[in-house]
């Protein structure tokens, strides 16, 4: 079992650009959540996808959008990048039931210059 995988591992962009991050969930998992972890901080919830629809959303602007595909993989898109978007972006997958463990990927480190 490959676990949760994310690509790319690192990314450098400039202000105003757009970025797409990708996540493949653990085998058998149907729910994907995205978190942003700024340096020295705990992860913050961005949104969650289940059955190809956004089920929950945190306090992030509309510049942050996502998608889930029929194979349960997911993308996170960020438009009009700001310096403050520099962070580690973590994807977590789970079975979607209450209290089910969320398994995290290694993350994508995004640097905005």
């Amino acid at each position, binding site marked *: 079992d490959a676990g*949760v995988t994310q690509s790319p591992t690192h990314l450098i962009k400039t202000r105003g650009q757009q970025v797409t991050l990708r996540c493949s969930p653990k085998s058998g998992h149907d*729910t994907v*959540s995205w*978190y942003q972890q700024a340096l*020295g*901080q*705990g*992860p*913050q*919830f961005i949104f*969650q996808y*289940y059955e190809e629809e956004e*089920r*929950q959303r*945190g306090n992030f602007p509309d510049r942050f959008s996502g998608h889930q595909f029929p194979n349960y993989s997911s993308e996170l898109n960020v438009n009009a990048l700001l310096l403050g978007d520099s962070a580690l972006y*973590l994807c*977590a997958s*789970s*079975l*979607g*039931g*209450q*209290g*089910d*463990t*969320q*398994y*995290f*990927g*290694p*993350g994508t480190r995004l640097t905005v210059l």
Partner: protein
Amino acid sequence: AQSVTQLDSQVPVFEEAPVELRCNYSSSVSVYLFWYVQYPNQGLQLLLKYLSGSTLVKGINGFEAEFNKSQTSFHLRKPSVHISDTAEYFCAVSDPLIQGAQKLVFGQGTRLTINP
């Protein structure tokens, strides 16, 4: 809104000594509680979780935590630490009243450093 406070940003401990990492949450209703560990340049790994039942929860790598509803705390303990326990530890809470997989609300993290 739920929030989590990890009372210590850094905890230095000597190898084979006991350690306690403190976590308090703010919620007047039932909660699910989690402890995750993050090793350098890696994602988060679940150590243990409390959903219901016994207030003493045992996890991986010899860690355990105790849920205290009256003090709204969920402190993590290990009786004897090893160099390999050096990592960042995060306490998290979620709302069991939300259907399906709940979003996790994390604390700021505690950096545990084990000295030989």
